[in-house]
Structure formats: structure tokens, C-alpha cells
């Protein structure tokens, strides 16, 4: 789920919406230092929105404070969301233009389709 958080379709672009058709659950070794570092780089609100959109059974607080960023439970939830949910098939949708970017075998395809070029 980490990738979808950094991509966007157009210049201004609000966070891309995610539609998942196939989500795989994988098991990844927990590394709290990595999660702490990556937390500084992602947009938390967008991630939380994506989690809600996908209907994942994870609860994330609305805002994150300094203290919660050191909370083990929170970090473990972030770990699970960022690394252990793999969107294998689905699409990213630009809320501005409605343009859809398919996700196939876990790889988002940001190439413009033939029909959109003209």
C-alpha cells in the first residue's frame, strides 16, 4: 500500500482513490525504526482515507501526535497497512479527472491509454 500513497495523476491532483479487486496478505518482518522513518514521509490523512475506502479492518486515529508515533501498537498497525496489504489487482482513480490507472500484479500502470492521448 505504500506505493499508492506517493502517486498522482495530474498536476494538482488530490490523493488518488484506490479500488481493489484482489488484495493479498503477506507477512513481513517488523522493523520499528523503518516504520518511524517512513512515517515522516507519507501523508497520513491520505493513507487513512485509503484504508477506509478499501474497508480494511484496521483502526487508525484521526490525527497523530508525537507520543502516538512512539506507540508500539500504532507502529505495528502502520507496519501492517504499509507492508502487509499488497494490492494485486485494482485501480487508482484520479478524483479530479476520473482517469483510471490499472494495478496489475501489484504494479500500477501510469502510462496514458491510447484513447486518452487524442
Amino acid at each position, binding site marked *: 500500500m*505504500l*506505493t499508492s*500513497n*506517493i*502517486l*498522482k*495523476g495530474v*498536476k494538482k*491532483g488530490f*490523493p488518488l482513490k484506490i479500488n481493489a479487486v484482489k488484495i493479498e496478505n*503477506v507477512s*513481513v518482518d517488523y522493523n520499528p*525504526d*523503518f516504520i518511524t*522513518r*517512513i512515517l515522516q*514521509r*507519507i*501523508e497520513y490523512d*491520505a493513507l487513512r482515507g485509503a484504508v477506509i475506502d478499501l474497508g480494511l479492518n484496521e483502526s487508525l486515529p484521526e490525527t497523530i501526535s508525537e507520543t502516538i508515533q512512539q506507540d508500539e501498537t500504532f507502529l505495528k498497525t502502520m507496519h501492517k497497512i504499509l*507492508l502487509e496489504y499488497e494490492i494485486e489487482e485494482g485501480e487508482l482513480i484520479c478524483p479530479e479527472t476520473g482517469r483510471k*490507472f490499472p494495478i496489475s*500484479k*501489484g*504494479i*500500477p*500502470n*501510469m*502510462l*496514458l491509454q491510447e484513447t486518452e*492521448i*487524442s
Partner: protein
Amino acid sequence: MKLKELESHLSNVENFSNAKEYLEQYMTTPHLAARMIYTAQTQYEDIENNLLIDLGIGTGMLSIASCLLNADHVFGFDCDPDALKLCQSNIEEFELESNIDLIQADLRRIRLPIDLQRIKADTIIMNPPFGTKPFSIANEDQDEFCLGGIDMHFLQHARQIAQHSIYSLHKTSTRDHIYKKAKDWNMKMDVLAVLQFDIAKLEKKRPNRKTTTTANSAPLKAIEVDLIRFEIKDNMDS
């Protein structure tokens, strides 16, 4: 991990079986990749615990090398679905599925599909095409694509998404031009090494490929290539 050990691991990265000439596809050699990434880490600490982006990930060689030296995470971009498939397979071979994420995008376009408000990589790594092979685009598209100096275009992308440093390869013959651009773009530039590239030979390094040249392609001479490290001077740029 020692340099020799790293290079040895990288020898397990599988090469293209049908490299596309028009995309200038060839595998960055384990020898070069090991030295590039090992230097980036030992001399500059630009790899371990860093967030990386690989522009034109190809076989995944540079990204895999980086993960072996403990990069936090790598986002790799490539336009070719066959390259991405090969890359995916190499990533699985090294069990780095949770460390490297792939995105299919055309880097020849003016804009990258990345939200710069949301993410900037610490370090960019790349072995960009040099533009030795022509590529054709439909007329309607020309505004959206960069037409000349494709490696400079990759560098321009890298400049926009790098927080700290960029490692790239460019023809030695263009060095002065690149120094000027680096200055314009507020980057410090260091040539770390000069190498000999025999692209035609690299492209032929596949077991089932005949060694005779095809009728319509003249054999390429060896070209001199600079391994360059760029450092972003102004971190206030968005």
C-alpha cells in the same frame, strides 16, 4: 557486506532475454552496480536507511544492490512491461518483495506521476538511456515528451524528486554540458569514475543471441561514460 560479496550476489540478477534496442535496454553489470552502490554507501552514506528511487529500473540491478546494502525502500520506475516482469522475478529471487515497489510510467514524459508534496526520495539511482537509439512518437504527443538529450531529461526528473543526492551515468563527451546544467539546477557535481561502455556488446550478452551484427545496425564503438554523483545544494526547492 564487502564489495566482492556484493558483486557476487548481484551475479544472480537475471539479464534481459530480448532486450529492446529502441529503449536502449541492457543490464547494468554486477561489477558496475556493486561499485556504484558500494561507493554511495561507504563514502557518502547515501544508501543505508535511505528512501531511494530508481529511474529506469530495468532488471532491478541497482535497486537490488541498494537493498543488499540496507536501503530502507526503493520505488522503481520503468515504461516496459517486459522489463518490469523480469525485474519482479529478480526481486522475488532475492526475496525483496517488501523492499522494492514497481511503477509503470513513461519517463520520457514531461511530468512524473509522483506527488512532490508527499514524497521526495533521499537518493536517486539510475543508469539512464543515453539517446543513442532514436525513438518515435506520434506527432500529437510531442508536447508531452522530451525529444533530445534523454539522459538529461531523466536527470531533470531526478532533480525534482531528490532530497539529497543523485547517482547517474552520462557520456563523458557531454560532461561540460552537464556541469553547466548542474550549476543551473543548484547541484554540486562530482565525477566519481570514468568507464568504458560497449553497449553493442552489452546488448549482445545473451546466450541465444548471434554475434553477427544485423544488416541495418552499424557496430557501436566503445563509449566513455562518467559515473556522477550530484548533491542537492538547496533543500528548500519544492
